[in-house]
C-alpha cells in the first residue's frame, strides 16, 4: 500500500517552507499561520496513522518504496539507495512526539519578532528533516535527514540566539558533525558488507543495500566482507564489528548527549530561543536514543551485549554528573539542560539492560522526557520573555503573583523528578526495573541510578522552593512585567501537562504501541 500519507509528513512542511520563502514580505503576518496550519495538518495525519496502525504486525507499516539511486561502482557492483519510509511502534512513538512538540514549539514561536520569513522557513525545514529521520528505513536516507537537520538548527540558534550564539551554534554543529562522520563510517561499512539477495540475482551483479530490513538481518552479510561474523577482520586490534558498534555508540552518544560528549548541550540551550530549546530537548536528543536502538543495537545485536556494562556505566555517569551539575547551576535554563543530560542517562541504562523491560522503559523515558523537557523549557521561556533574565536567585515567592504559572511549573517539576502518576516516573521505573532484571549489568548500577532520582528531587524542589515560595520579591524593574500566563502559554503548558498526566496514569497507551515492536526486536 503506497498511500503517500507518510510521505506527506515530510513533503507538507517542505512545501510550506518553500511557500514561506517565496511569499513577499508584505504577507509577513501570515508566515506563522502557514507554519501553524502545516503543523496541525501533520497532527491530523499522524492521528490517522495511529488509528490505522496495527501494533501486532511485526513489520514496517505504511511502507512507501521507490527506487532512487543505483550507483554503479567501479567493479560493477551496485550500491542501491532507495526512498523507503515506513513505521513501526518505535518510530510511530517518536513521530507522534515530534509532531506534538513541533506544534507546541510553533505556537511558542509566535513571539519571534525578527526575520520571520527566514525563521519559519527554517523551522518548517527542520520539521521535515526530523520527521524524515524517524520514518526513513534506508540508512542512506536516514543519514541525509540526520545531516541535513544540522543546518537549519545551526542557523536557528545562530541567528535568533542569545548573546553568545556564535560560539554555541558552532560548537553544536561541530560536535554533532563529528558524531555523524562516525555514523557515516559505519554506514559505508555496513552497505559494503550487506547484499540484497533478490536484486543480486536480478541484476546478476553484487547489489549492496542500505535497506534497514536487510542490514538488520545478519544472514545478508557477504562472506569474507569487513563485517562478516565468521572470520572477523581486525581494525587496530579490535574486531571490525566491535569497532563499528563503538563508533555508532559514540556517534549517537554525542547526540543523546552522553557525558563526556555533552558540553555542547548546555551552551546550545542557553543561547537558543525558547521554541528552539523546546525542539532541541524535546526531539533532537531523542534521535540519539532512536539511533542507538534502531541502528547500533538493531544491526549489531551480536556485539551489543558485550558492551552492556560499558553503556550502563556511561549512563550512570551521565545521570550522576548531570544531576550534580544541575545542583550547582544558577541559571534556570542551564539547570534544565543538565537535568536533561541526567534524564537521558536513564535511556542508556535501559538500553544497556538489553531486555524487553529495559527497552520499553528507555523508549518511554524518551517520550516522557520529550513532553517534560519541552514543558520545562517553556517555563524558563515564560520568565525570560517577561524579564530577560533567568537567574534563579533573582526571583522569590512567584506563587503569590503568578498562581497559574506555579501550577504548571509544579506539574513539570514533579513530573521530572519522577512523581508517580506523572509520566517521568514510568520511564525511570521501567529502565531501572529492566536493569535490575538484566543479567548483563551488575545490580550496583541501578542502585546508584536511583540516586539520580533523589538528586533530581533535590535540585528541582530546591529551585521550586527558592523561586516560588515565601514573600514575593524580585528586582524592581521586573516587578511590573511579571504577570501571570497569557492564553497562549496556558494552552501550551496545559496541553503538555495533561499529556504527562495521561501517560503517567495510562502508560499502556504508549506501551501497547511499542511493546510488540520491542519484543520483535529481541527475536
Amino acid at each position, binding site marked *: 500500500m503506497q498511500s503517500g500519507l507518510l510521505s506527506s509528513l515530510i513533503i507538507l512542511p517542505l512545501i510550506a517552507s518553500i511557500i514561506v520563502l517565496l511569499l513577499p514580505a508584505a504577507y509577513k503576518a501570515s508566515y506563522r499561520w502557514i507554519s501553524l496550519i502545516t503543523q496541525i495538518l501533520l497532527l491530523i495525519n499522524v492521528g490517522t496513522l495511529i488509528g490505522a496502525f496495527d501494533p501486532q504486525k511485526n513489520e514496517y507499516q505504511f511502507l512507501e518504496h521507490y527506487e532512487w539511486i543505483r550507483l*554503479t561502482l*567501479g567493479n560493477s557492483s551496485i550500491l542501491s539507495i532507495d526512498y523507503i519510509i515506513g513505521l513501526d511502534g518505535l518510530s510511530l512513538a517518536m513521530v507522534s512526539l515530534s509532531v506534538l512538540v513541533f506544534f507546541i514549539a510553533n505556537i511558542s514561536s509566535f513571539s519571534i519578532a525578527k526575520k520571520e520569513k527566514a525563521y519559519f522557513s527554517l523551522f518548517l525545514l527542520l520539521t521535515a528533516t526530523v520527521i524524515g529521520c524517524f520514518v526513513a528505513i534506508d540508512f542512506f536516507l536516514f543519514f541525509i535527514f540526520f545531516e541535513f537537520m*544540522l*543546518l537549519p538548527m545551526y542557523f536557528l540558534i545562530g541567528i535568533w540566539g542569545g548573546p553568545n550564539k556564535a560560539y554555541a551554534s558552532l560548537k553544536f554543529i561541530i560536535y554533532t*558533525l563529528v558524531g555523524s562522520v*562516525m555514523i557515516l563510517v559505519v554506514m559505508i561499512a555496513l552497505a559494503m558488507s550487506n547484499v540484497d539477495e533478490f536484486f543480486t540475482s536480478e541484476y546478476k551483479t553484487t547489489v549492496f543495500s542500505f535497506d534497514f530490513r536487510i542490514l538488520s538481518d545478519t544472514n545478508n552479510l557477504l562472506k569474507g566482507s569487513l563485517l562478516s561474523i565468521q572470520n572477523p*577482520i581486525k*581494525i*587496530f586490534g579490535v574486531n571490525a564489528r566491535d569497532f563499528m558498534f563503538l563508533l555508532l555508540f559514540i556517534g549517537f552518544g554525542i547526540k543523546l548527549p552522553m557525558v563526556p560528549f555533552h558540553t555542547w548541550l548546555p551552551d546550545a540551550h542557553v543561547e537558543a530561543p525558547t521554541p528552539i530549546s523546546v525542539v532541541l530537548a524535546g526531539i533532537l536528543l531523542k534521535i540519539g536514543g532512536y539511533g542507538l536502538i534502531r541502528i547500533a543495537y538493531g544491526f549489531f545485536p551480536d556485539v551489543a551485549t558485550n558492551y552492556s556494562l560499558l553503556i550502563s556505566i556511561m549512563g550512570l555517569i551521565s545521570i550522576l554528573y548531570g544531576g550534580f551539575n544541575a545542583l550547582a547551576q544558577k541559571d534556570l535554563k542551564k539547570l534544565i539542560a543538565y537535568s536533561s543530560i541526567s534524564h537521558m542517562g536513564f535511556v542508556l541504562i535501559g538500553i544497556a539492560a538489553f531486555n524487553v523491560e529495559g527497552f520499553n522503559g528507555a523508549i518511554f523515558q524518551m517520550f516522557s522526557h520529550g513532553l517534560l523537557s519541552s514543558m520545562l523549557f517553556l517555563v524558563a521561556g515564560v520568565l525570560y520573555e517577561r524579564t530577560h533574565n533567568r537567574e534563579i536567585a533573582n526571583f522569590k515567592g512567584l506563587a503569590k503573583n503568578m498562581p497559574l504559572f506555579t501550577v504548571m511549573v509544579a506539574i513539570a517539576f514533579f513530573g521530572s523528578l519522577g512523581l508517580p502518576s506523572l509520566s517521568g516516573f514510568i520511564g525511570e521505573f521501567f529502565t531501572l526495573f529492566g536493569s535490575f532484571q538484566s543479567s548483563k549489568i551488575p545490580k550496583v548500577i541501578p542502585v546508584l541510578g536511583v540516586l539520580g532520582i533523589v538528586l533530581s528531587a533535590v535540585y528541582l524542589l530546591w529551585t521550586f522552593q527558592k523561586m516560588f515560595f515565601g514573600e514575593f520579591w524580585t528586582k524592581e524593574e521586573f516587578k511590573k512585567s511579571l504577570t501571570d500566563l497569557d492564553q497562549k502559554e496556558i494552552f501550551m503548558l496545559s496541553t503538555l501537562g495533561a499529556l504527562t498526566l495521561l501517560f503517567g496514569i495510562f502508560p499502556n497507551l504508549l506501551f501497547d504501541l511499542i511493546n510488540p515492536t520491542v519484543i520483535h526486536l529481541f527475536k
Partner: protein
Amino acid sequence: MIALQEILHSTQQILPEWLLAIGILALVLVISFGKPESKLPYGLSFILILTYTLSVTFFYSDLANKSISLYSGMLILDKTSIFFKQLLGISAIIFMVHSRLFRYKFEGEIYFLILCVILGLSFLSMTTHFLVIYIAVELASISSYILVASKKQKTNFEAAIKYLIFGAASSAIMLYGISFFYGISHTLNFTDPIFLKFTNTNSPLIIQVLSFMFLGGLFFKIAAAPFHSWVPDVYEVTTTPIISFLSFAPKAIGVLVVARVAQANFADINPVLLLIIFLSLIFGNLAALWQTNLKRMLGYSGIAQAGFILIGLLKGPQSDFYGAFFYILTYLPITMGAFFLADILYKQTGSDELEDYKGLGQKHIFLGINAVIIMMALIGLPPTIGFMAKLMVFSSIINLGDALGSSVYYGLLIFGLLNAAISIYYYLKVPYIMLIKTAYKQPKYAPNYLLSIVLTYFSLSLLIFFFFPDFGTEWIKAVLF
C-alpha cells in the same frame, strides 16, 4: 618509411591539439596586428576552446575501448584522456563565460596564455612518456606563472615569483627522478615492459623514492602538501576567473597522470600517497581555519581537497580510481562555483575579506542560500554532490582496507572524515558571516541579477546531481582505464 607513416597517422589522430596550436599562432598574429581594445582575441579564443571541446567529443566517437599509441608510444589516446580533455574544455568555457559576465577587460595575451595552459594539459592528459610529461608540465606551468603575474601589481609579482621558484624546484626534482629512471632502465616510457623489468629488479625502496621525486612535479600541479607553499599567495592575488580555471584544470590532469603511474604499477606508491594525503589534509584544513580572506581560504581548501582526491588513487588489487575520477568530475562545478561566488561578493563589496561580507546574505537572501549550498558541497554535506564524491572516495578506502587487510586504511578513513568535520568550521564561516552577522556598511554595488542566476545554475547543478547521480556515474564508468 614506416616511421614517417606513423608520424603522419599520429598527426591525424591529434587533430584537436593541432587545431588549438594553429589557432594559438593565429591568435598571436591577431594580438600583434590588431587594435589594443579589440574584442577579436576574446572571440577567437572562445571559438578555439569550443572547437577544441567539440572536436575531442565527436572526433573520437569511434575510439570505443581502444587505446591508440601515437608517435611510437610518446602519446597514448584512450577514453580516459578524452574524458579529461572534455573536462578541460568545459572548465575553459566556464572561464570564458565567467570573465565575460564580469566584464573583465583582459589583454589578448591572457587568452593566449590560457590556451597554452590548455594545450600543455591536453598533451599531459595522454602520455605515459617521461619526457612528454616534463615538457607538458613546463608548458602549462610557465604559462601559469605569467598568468599569475598578469595583474601587474606588486603582490602579484611576489606570488608569481614564489610560484615560479617552487615550480622550478619541483620540476628540477622531477627531472632528477626521471634521469634516475632513465639510468636504470634506458627507457622513458613507464608503461614499457622493459621499464617494468628493470624497476622490478631494483630494490623497491629506491623505486619508491624515485617515484616520489618524479611525482613531486605532479603534486605541485595538484597543489598537494608538501608542494603547496605557493598556493595561498597565488590564490589570493590572482584575478578570480583565472585562478578559478587554474584551481581546477591542472589539478584534474595532474590526478590523471598520478593515476596512470599507479596503474602502471612499477612501484608501490601507496606509502607515498598516504604521506601526501595525510599532510595535505592536515595542512590544508588547519591553515584554512585561520583565514580571513575568502580567496586565500579557498586556496587552503584546494590543498585539503587535493588530499581527498588522492585518497581515490590509492591502489588495491581491484581498484580502478573510480572514486578519484568521480571526485574530479564533481569538483569542477564545486570549485568554479565557489570562485564565481567569490567574484560576485567581490563585485558587491570591493573586497575579498570575509568580514566585509557582513549582512550581505540578509540583503540578498538568494545570494545567501547559494553560498550555503556551495559551501555545503565543499564540506561534503548532503544533499549536494560533494557528499556523493566523498562517499565514493571513502567507500573505496573501505574496499581497500578489506582487500589489503591493513588497519592504516581504516585509520585514514576516520582521519579523513574527521578532517571533513573540521572543515565545516571555515566553510560555514562564509554563509555565517553573510547571513548572521549584521551589516555595518551598505554594499557598494547593487546585485546583478544575471550573475545571481548563473550562480544559481551552479548551485542547482550541485543539488540535482545529488538526486540523479546516474549521469555522472555512467559517464565515469565508461571512461575508466
